[in-house]
């Protein structure tokens, strides 16, 4: 293994039908029209010296190092800003050019520290390289004059430093922040010799910088440098893998020194991220080696006992023995398991296989239950399969983008940057969200319409948009006639045209002014290619599935499907939500979304697995907990999921957990769920895994092992060992063999294998004989189910209503720097930005309650009470408060209720009636929490320090 050095072509690739052929240093090269001479030279195998150019941003032409001579032209134009033309003859080397380049370099070096041997970038510095390339041998100007050598170093950011003394003011960082990330946090301050890069009027930490790392990546010197590289030195080999955070699924190079990660850098060939990253994937990977990692298997008879470290064999046999005992006593259906979107496809597939084949029931579920299960139900009902319709790059062809119940700049930041780029190019934007999210108005992005609806009124709004389209004659009749079921459409058309669905009739329920809604509907229907992107603000409602169907109806009615630039696109929360669903981890279906009652499908699996399988659906997570409270569900295997923190109505969850006789948790840390466990299997971080993740665009990417499993066994090996101890061996030698089995048994994965992924880089399913290299855009020419089906989407208000006692609506979500339950990010320096969950409250509501910024407040619902600190914010509407659920001590889900999506049981996290009052001390629940954590995380005589912190 070697360090992967990607080619930098200097300027971006161009796509053009017309090609031009030119000659560079005697070599003929043909490139698309619009390509720079610099890029054409690299294509021809000729490296032109450069400093300010790099191929993920437009040419700037400032460093004057890439000068060339062109036959028939005067002067020495910059090759980065000069476009290739037919017949052009270019010389990249001549005595005149060499002299010019040396002169330029001499000026740069005359104001640059000569500490190369002790510099963190030694060996990875473009300035150093270029000095060598141009043959710089002396600096005639000396260092006595005015210079920047003593410029102050900004070390405020936890992950990188800004050493102004080493800056050559090439503007690559500033342009990366603008063009790649779209944040515009950096600028060039001053003029002439006084020009300097600045993060606004403050330091990096306090600035608008989002720590995506694009500037660090772009810097050609040691000015912007990862602190890990400063501490450890440069890496010597790299492993390409896939990020374990959100559903974008960015490809990264894990850059290593031996078995130690030195830095994670985004991989240019990653088709989801194209070389970009966010603060989580780029920097927040230190949790993998955090001291809280559990590295030995542990067991205990009671959850109040201290944990006892045991051998793998003893732990596996203990768990298997307990599961067998419970089944013998309470019946086959008394146990089950939960897998997670943080697991690989192969791990998830194994868990559901073990449960169906070794447990002998279908009591398997996954955390997609509590996020995107309505996506599966809604899109399958209308289009025929549970998947987003587009690839991410499709957004480049969107003319109108409608973002509903999603906050991409926080939750899917790398795709948000891609989307913002398209918006800066002129695409129109509609935001449907109760909060004024960043996309509504940020640097060079402004929504045309922000439909600031009341939480819980999504379906009323989507129906009203459809009403306008139908009643204004904007239906794409030819598309509907050709592609959709006629009877269902006519039924829907009649329903949606009813006056009660009009913007005027729904305005009182949704809070969205009818005129704004009508204008937004017209824009969506007539503005060109219109794409919907949505998140958990759609799904986590009592009508989550109805809303997904409503969006699908809208896209079908306007013909916005089956081509680039359009579609209905779920932004999946975690890295492998899509994959977890694909792999058959729901209790009612096998991999590839085939119901367990389907005889031929079940026979296929029975023949392959050599076991009889149940033909009825098993229990969902919430049903398992209900059954546990009722006394019929007694044991559970949980891999990679923390339901005590993430699932709603914490008291109900813990009551269910406490009622079980054997809880087995497989995780990196003693998470909140482990407090209720009897067996703990130490799991692996993504850096220790071999397998695949499938992102929100159905892209299957490889996860490659960079370091060995810390606890000695990989997650898939642990599941195999447990299954074998239960009497059902699954003897795979490598995760690739698991994928081979998935491919054999799942038509949409028929063409997928590790070798194929390695060959293509990644694959979007369906991948089979019809689409041997995968399917970027679905439903071209026809839907998976044949004809698209319009569904009736009656608006039914949630039963969670505000009252005099609970007059406010709480909606929960996430922020940029933390991830899900915080197991990973809360054990990194990301806590600098978000050390605790806070309650965002509108100034009006705060003033009415005498609440000031930073006050401790009690957040109370009919389910429970917690306390947290207040942040006064106009991002909220009056009457709506907001918090996150990243920290265990906050207990945001102590407050959320048991209401759920009618079809899938996805919790209604987004609507909880609450009251907010000033509080003097933590809540009873929080006191109980701290006490419980202290008691349940003891390892014999050792005390485990967890990432969760009280105050």
């Amino acid at each position, binding site marked *: 293994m070697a360090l992967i050095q990607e080619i930098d072509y200097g300027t971006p690739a161009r796509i053009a039908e017309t090609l031009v052929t030119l000659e560079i240093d005697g070599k003929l090269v043909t490139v698309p029209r619009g390509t720079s001479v610099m890029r054409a030279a690299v294509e021809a195998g000729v490296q032109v010296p450069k400093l300010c150019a790099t191929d993920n941003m437009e040419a700037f032409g400032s460093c004057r190092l890439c000068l060339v001579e062109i036959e028939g032209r005067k002067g020495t134009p910059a090759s980065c800003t000069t476009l290739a033309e037919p017949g052009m003859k270019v010389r990249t080397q001549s005595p005149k050019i060499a002299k010019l380049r040396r002169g330029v370099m001499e000026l740069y070096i005359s104001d640059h520290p000569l500490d190369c041997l002790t510099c963190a970038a030694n060996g990875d510095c473009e300035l150093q390289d270029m000095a060598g390339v141009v043959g710089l041998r002396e600096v005639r100007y000396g260092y006595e004059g005015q210079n920047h050598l003593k410029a102050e170093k900004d070390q405020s950011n936890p992950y990188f430093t800004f050493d102004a003394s080493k800056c050559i003011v090439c503007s690559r960082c500033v342009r990366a922040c603008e063009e790649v990330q779209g944040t515009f946090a950096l600028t060039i301050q001053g003029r002439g010799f006084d020009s300097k890069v600045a993060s606004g009027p403050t330091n990096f930490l306090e600035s608008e910088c989002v720590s995506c790392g694009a500037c660090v990546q772009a810097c050609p010197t040691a000015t912007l440098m990862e602190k890990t590289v400063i501490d450890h030195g440069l890496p010597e080999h790299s492993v390409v893998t896939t990020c374990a955070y959100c559903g974008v699924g960015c490809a990264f190079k894990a850059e290593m020194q031996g078995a130690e990660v030195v830095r994670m850098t985004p991989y240019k060939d990653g088709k989801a991220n194209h070389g970009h990253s966010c603060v989580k994937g780029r920097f927040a990977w230190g949790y993998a080696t955090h001291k809280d990692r559990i590295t030995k298997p542990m067991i205990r008879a009671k959850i109040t006992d201290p944990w006892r470290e045991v051998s793998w064999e003893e732990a596996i046999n203990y768990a298997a023995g307990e599961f067998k005992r419970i089944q013998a006593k309470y019946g086959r259906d008394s146990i089950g398991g939960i897998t997670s979107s943080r697991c690989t496809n192969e791990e998830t597939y194994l868990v559901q296989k073990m449960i169906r084949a070794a447990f002998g029931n279908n009591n398997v579920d996954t955390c997609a239950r509590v996020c995107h299960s309505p996506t599966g139900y809604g899109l399958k009902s209308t289009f025929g399969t549970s998947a987003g319709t587009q690839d991410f790059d499709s957004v480049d062809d969107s003319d109108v983008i409608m973002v509903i119940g999603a906050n991409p700049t926080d939750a899917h930041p790398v795709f948000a940057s891609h989307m913002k780029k398209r918006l800066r190019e002129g695409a129109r934007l509609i935001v449907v969200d109760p909060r004024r999210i960043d996309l509504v108005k940020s640097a060079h992005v402004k929504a045309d319409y922000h439909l600031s609806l009341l939480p819980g009124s999504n379906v009323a709004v989507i129906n009203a948009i459809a009403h306008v389209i139908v009643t204004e004659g904007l239906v794409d009749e030819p598309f509907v006639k050709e592609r959709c079921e006629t009877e269902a459409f006519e039924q829907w058309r009649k329903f949606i045209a009813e006056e009660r669905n009009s913007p005027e009739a729904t305005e009182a329920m949704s809070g969205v002014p009818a005129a704004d809604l009508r204008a937004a509907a017209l824009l969506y229907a007539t503005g060109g290619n219109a794409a919907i992107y949505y998140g958990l603000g759609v799904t986590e409602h009592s009508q989550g599935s109805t809303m997904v169907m409503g969006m699908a109806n809208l896209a079908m009615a306007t013909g916005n499907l089956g081509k680039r630039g359009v579609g209905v696109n779920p932004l999946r929360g975690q890295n492998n939500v899509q994959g977890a669903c694909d792999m058959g981890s729901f209790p009612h279906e096998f991999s590839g979304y085939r119901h367990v009652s389907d005889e031929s499908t079940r026979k296929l699996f029975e023949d392959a697995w050599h076991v009889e399988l149940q033909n009825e659906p098993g*229990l*969902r997570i919430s*049903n398992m907990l209900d059954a546990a409270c009722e006394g019929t569900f007694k044991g559970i295997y949980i891999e990679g999921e923390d339901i005590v923190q993430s699932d709603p109505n914490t008291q109900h969850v813990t009551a269910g957990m406490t009622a079980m006789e054997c809880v087995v948790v497989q995780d990196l840390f003693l998470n909140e769920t482990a407090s209720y466990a009897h067996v703990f299997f130490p799991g692996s971080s993504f850096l220790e895994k071999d397998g695949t993740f499938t992102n929100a665009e159905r892209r299957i990417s490889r996860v490659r092992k960079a370091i060995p499993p810390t606890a000695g066994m990989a997650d898939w090996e642990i599941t195999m060992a447990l299954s074998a101890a239960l009497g059902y061996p699954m003897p795979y030698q490598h995760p690739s063999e698991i994928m081979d089995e998935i491919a054999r048994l799942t038509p949409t994965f028929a063409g997928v294998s590790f070798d194929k992924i390695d060959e293509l880089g990644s694959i979007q399913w369906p991948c089979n004989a019809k689409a041997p290299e995968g399917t970027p855009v679905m439903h071209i020419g026809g839907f998976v189910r044949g004809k698209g089906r319009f569904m009736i989407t009656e608006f*039914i208000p949630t039963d969670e209503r505000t009252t005099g006692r609970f007059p406010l609506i709480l909606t929960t979500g996430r922020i940029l720097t933390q991830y899900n339950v915080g197991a990973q990010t809360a054990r990194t320096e990301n806590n600098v930005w978000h050390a605790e969950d806070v309650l965002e409250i509108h100034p009006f509501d705060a003033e009415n309650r005498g609440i000031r910024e930073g006050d401790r407040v009690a957040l109370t619902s009919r389910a429970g009470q917690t306390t947290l600190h207040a942040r006064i914010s106009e991002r909220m509407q009056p009457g709506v408060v907001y918090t996150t659920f990243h920290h265990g001590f906050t207990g945001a889900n102590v407050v959320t209720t048991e209401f759920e999506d*009618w079809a899938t049981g996805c919790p209604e996290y987004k609507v909880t009636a609450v009251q907010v009052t000033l509080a003097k001390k933590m809540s009873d629940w929080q006191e109980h929490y701290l006490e419980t954590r202290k008691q349940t995380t003891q390892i014999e005589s050792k005390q485990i320090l967890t990432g969760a912190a009280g105050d």
Partner: protein
Amino acid sequence: MIHRANQIALFFAGYPHDEAVAGVLDHFKKFWERRMRDQIVAYVAQGGKGLHELALEAVKRLQ
């Protein structure tokens, strides 16, 4: 359980009666585990108070 069943019924209430009952019944069969189905069947056997009429009809066909 009653609330869950009624929520399902309310969705299908937008469809013609027979189609709606079939939809609710299909949902119970496809997504409700045996224990849950047994519970609602037992509840209906005791009168099914508070159940939406579509859910009531569907459960009767579930028996």
